[in-house]
């Protein structure tokens, strides 16, 4: 098993997921299988291969610096659970 219980609990915390005790074993096993599967790639000889980010070797396109998105707040905020004076409201963030 490439991952242990502690690592998976840590990842779950970072992802804000709560794992019940009876879910942990299965999750560790499944995630380990994924990691092992991907690890096979490490076996391929890639010393002379230039890293590629796109199948057609495309590079990032750049857009001109222009404002193209007008204010659409009232429309967009119809999706929000709660708003006040134009602000999105969320449960109090305590620092």
């Amino acid at each position, binding site marked *: 098993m490439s991952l242990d219980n502690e690592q998976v609990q*840590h990842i779950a*915390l*970072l992802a*804000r997921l709560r794992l019940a005790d009876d879910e942990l074993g299965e999750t560790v096993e499944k995630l380990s299988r994924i990691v092992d599967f991907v690890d096979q790639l490490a076996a391929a000889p890639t010393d002379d291969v230039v890293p590629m*980010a*796109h199948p057609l070797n*495309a*590079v*990032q*396109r*750049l*857009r*001109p*610096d*222009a*404002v*193209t*998105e007008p*204010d*659409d*707040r009232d429309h*967009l*905020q119809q999706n929000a659970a*709660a708003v*006040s*004076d*134009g*602000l*999105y*409201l*969320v*449960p*109090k*963030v305590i*620092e």
Partner: protein
Amino acid sequence: MKGQWEVVIGLEIHTQLATVSKIFSGAATAYGAAPNTQACLVDLGYPGTLPVLNREVVRMAAMFGLAVNATIAPRSVFARKNYFYPDLPKGYQISQYELPIVAGGELFIAGDDGAQKRIGITRAHLEEDAGKSIHEGFDRQSGIDLNRAGTPLLEIVSEPDLRSAREAVAYMRKIHSIVRYLGISDGNMQEGSFRCDANVSVRPRGQEKLGTRAELKNLNSFRFVERAINFEIERQIDVLEDGGEVVQETRLYDADRDETRSMRSKEEANDYRYFPDPDLLPVEIDAAWVEELRSALPELPDAKRERFVAQYELKPDDAEILTASRALADYYEAAVSAGSGAPQAVGNWVIGDLTGALNRDGLDIAESKVAAEQLAGLVDRIADNTISGKIAKEVFDAMWAGEGSADEIIAARGLKQITDTSAIEAIVDKVIAANPGQVAEYQAGKDKLIGFFVGQVMKETQGKANPGVVNQMLKAKLAG
């Protein structure tokens, strides 16, 4: 003993780039808009949206790199920095990690020993800003304004080459000056366009290994940077001298209390799980573009300062002040070329009375109420002895109040210096006759009283006599 400790500081400066639209979306970046009126679907992290990189952001970052003699990466990569906070709707910030756009630069400051000191710049990378959380005024809720989300930032990371709060501020000022010269940021600290985190540690002098550092956040003025670092240095030395250990942590500077405080909360927060953002391809900057940008670089602060010293024979300290901002330097040069050639005198007026008036009224040099040509006219009238330096201050104030050119004010207020020596002589005689007691004392050896007599004559002439002439005449008459 403070002397046995060496301070090591590195700065991370966040500069907001002066684009009209965001780094990955076409929403506006104007400061001070009503909440969420400049936050589009991309900024709000809606599913199905994709970031498209702003060309101007790439150009600005490359310009900065060239200005600090750094390498512009021919290929750089955006990465996701993952964390949860309500002002970051996507759950990750798009930043750069392994392949930043700018690497390995340098600049020079006046070091603590007075000599030029090289400060290394590790890297500068592009990233998006987060939104703002407002905690006051809501019952068990926070308000989120995402106008700032997606605003382009250039994060400039220095090497740990700084050895005092003073050096840190000198470095920060130099970066501030460079980004404003390049026109890539307005550098407005009140609006948060230019802010800084400081990594501070101390170690016994002579020890190679760095001490444990604390990261200071929330430093949004030059004064706060200096005060926060100085507080932190004292705090760490106290901890070490009491036999304790400095804890690696993030500390927040509280300007009201002038102290730094631990931000305990986030033990796990530094696990950002960076990975290349699959929504963005590598950014390529070809050599031709780099050369085009290099040829478009303006004269930078250091070069301008050296030219000012050579061309105008200014004192180096004055040249430093006059070239701190491009606008001030341009004003100075306009004033020198409009006048009949007294560059140091023009410099003194710009640094002294003009800067004083700007600060007093909270104005920028671009908003000066005295134009460069007006100031040149004033300096010329002092140089040709039309008015004394003292009267010139009155004329300057009148120009500031909008009363016209120096010549107009001198004429309207009758301030022209009395050059007719017989007129001055009559007043000198009158003053001597009116003060027999002081005359006797002076003649008995109390030389300092000459100032009293000069003052009396200047008062009689309402400051319009040439003090040099008055002085000479008084001395001759009193001696006789």
